[in-house]
């Protein structure tokens, strides 16, 4: 074991891990964090806490993570390279670890253009790969990125993201390999709707032996409506929603569409469980956290292992 | 304002608009005498500065008249002229001047009536807008220069 992370323990045990996420509130409302976490606490192994998601200012991810930690749960600290330079990020990592957070995700982050401060300067002092490297160096070598020694280094279980669907496809596995090489212990993928393409991706992942080096959690998002499906296809960069999925959603009445979306999510999990290299699932039920338990249960991922 | 007779400069290309003006004359079609034509080989020759300087020197309105789009004797001089006129219009707007004081027009050599009609319409528009706001200053300036 590299860390104290519960997620690491689950994954090492060989069980399929389940994670989900909580988006911190846009205000000093700690109850909101607790509420959301409570909805999913029994059905997941760890909870991602997003970092100024979609470039909108929110409660800082480490603070929200501490709230979750205080509930006795296991937060995953998301950290984007967009908002902080390497000094700020490293100090936040030490801070979070000091408050008991031991798992984190290293991300690029959406461009500021999309958020509520488009006039802000994106920092991007490091990129996500370099952040993975930095966290690993802090943990394994006990050194800051600049080379100085850390007194009691933070031991983070390191995650990174992968989008199997963004362009160019052929680069996607190579980019994953790069993140693994940089030191990623686990990967959460972008939402998967095009299962065929994802399976092809996983084949390539396995061909390179990456499944032996990293735990890959497949991203699952239940869709509420055909409109959402269309929106994701057309408006969200790097998203691949096949027309059949939209057709299937649109094929049922408006009232039945949420149920259909959940059904699709469950079927996807069931199919992907069998795919070599998939070590778990990351369920992103955006503003729909209450459905996570149902999905986890129906997909046969419940109860969660107790370690 | 009733007695206001604007001074209007029309940069006309040799091949079409200037010929159209001659046509209007040969057909004895009347148009406001306010319009004074300066002949150029192609409207593509008209620089934004020429238009600005005409206003600066006291023109109440300036227009550039070339061949019909697609018919330019020099391929695309008239489309370039249109872009420049639009540029000057934006500039004037920034200055708080009426962009309508400058315009681009297109006509073929045979369109004498059209020349006269556009000259009339443009003159009427300038009459509505009133005199070039710096005209009085220019007269002062000229007098100063003389004295």
């Amino acid at each position: 074991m590299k860390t104290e992370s519960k997620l690491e323990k689950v994954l090492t045990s060989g069980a399929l891990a389940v994670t989900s996420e909580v988006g911190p509130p846009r205000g000093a409302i700690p109850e909101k964090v607790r509420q959301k976490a409570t909805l999913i606490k029994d059905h997941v192994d760890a909870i991602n806490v997003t970092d100024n998601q979609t470039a909108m200012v929110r409660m800082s991810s480490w603070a929200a993570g501490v709230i979750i930690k205080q509930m006795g749960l296991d937060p995953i600290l998301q950290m984007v390279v967009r908002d902080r330079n390497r000094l700020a990020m490293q100090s936040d990592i030490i801070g979070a670890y000091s408050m008991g957070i031991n798992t984190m995700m290293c991300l690029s982050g959406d461009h500021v253009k999309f958020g509520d401060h488009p006039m802000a300067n994106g920092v991007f002092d490091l990129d996500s790969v370099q952040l993975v490297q930095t966290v690993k160096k802090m943990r394994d070598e006990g050194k800051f990125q600049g080379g100085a020694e850390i007194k009691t280094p933070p031991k983070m279980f390191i995650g990174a993201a992968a989008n199997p669907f963004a362009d160019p496809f052929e680069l996607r596995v190579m980019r994953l390999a790069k993140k693994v090489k940089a030191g990623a212990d686990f990967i959460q993928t972008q939402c998967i709707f095009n299962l065929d393409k994802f399976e092809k991706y996983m084949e390539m992942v396995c061909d390179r032996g990456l499944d032996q080096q990293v735990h890959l959690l497949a991203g699952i998002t239940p869709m509420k409506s055909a409109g959402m499906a269309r929106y994701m296809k057309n408006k969200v960069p790097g998203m691949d929603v096949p027309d059949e999925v939209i057709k299937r959603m649109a094929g049922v009445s408006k009232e039945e569409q949420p149920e259909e979306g959940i059904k699709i999510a469950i079927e996807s999990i069931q199919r992907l469980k069998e795919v070599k290299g998939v070590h778990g699932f990351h369920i992103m039920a955006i503003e729909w956290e209450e459905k996570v338990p149902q999905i986890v249960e129906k997909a046969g991922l419940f109860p969660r292992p107790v370690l | 304002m009733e007695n206001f007779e604007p001074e209007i400069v029309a940069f006309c290309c040799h091949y079409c608009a200037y010929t159209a003006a001659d046509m209007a004359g040969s057909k004895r079609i009347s148009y406001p005498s306010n319009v004074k034509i300066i002949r150029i080989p192609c409207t593509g020759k008209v620089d934004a500065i020429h238009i600005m300087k005409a206003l600066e020197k006291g023109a109440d309105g300036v227009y550039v008249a070339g061949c019909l789009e697609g018919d330019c004797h020099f391929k695309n001089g008239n489309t370039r002229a249109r872009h420049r006129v639009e540029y000057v219009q934006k500039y004037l707007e920034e200055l708080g001047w009426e962009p309508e004081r400058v315009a681009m027009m297109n006509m073929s050599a045979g369109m004498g009536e059209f020349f006269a009609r556009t000259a009339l319409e443009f003159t009427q528009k300038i009459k509505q807008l009133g005199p070039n706001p710096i005209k009085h200053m220019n007269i002062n300036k000229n007098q100063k220069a003389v004295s």
Partner: protein
Amino acid sequence: MITAEQKPLNEIIAYISPYDRILLVGCNECVTVCSAGGRKEVGLLASALNLHFLKQGRTIDIKEMTLERQCDPEYVEELVSEIDRADAILSMACGCGVQTIAERYKEKPVFPAVNTKFMGASESQGVWVERCKGCGDCMLGITGGICPVARCSKHLLNGPCGGTSNGMCEISPDVECAWCLIWERLKALGMENRYEEIMEAKDWRPAGGGGPRKIIREDLSL
């Protein structure tokens, strides 16, 4: 080339309003090439300012001059003969030119008439695009001649983020994804393996993170 764009007229007018005699100075280098501050733009701006002030009932005296290069003191020296007749200088050069003038003529206020934009290349007539951030540590040799610092919206050094679609950047369907371009180029060059190497965290000191930069050629300096 350094690119620039004329400032809004209102801003320029606000700067020079207090003065009666303006020396309007263009530059025959970059800003001429990008049609922001050459002889022609100097003429246009002078004309526009005249229109404005005359309308206000004011006559101001604008002297137009265009120097070969405003960022060289010797050329800036050419203003000497005119400087006494001016209350203020309005420069249409890039920031370098404005500062060279300010340094030489300390007693006269200098105002910029253009916004200096970026180091760019011309894509087609009238279109200029950013190509270099002047980061001081050129990595084009390993990125197939396409700069991720200048052309990736997130200056990512290790490949495209997840927002790429159809070769375009997430910020706009009109902006090409630098990493897609790099990858295509590397493939074409048979250098795919370049991509696999992790590019270490960039040292931003040469990019200006280490304070104002300077180049000294010992052999040339007097």
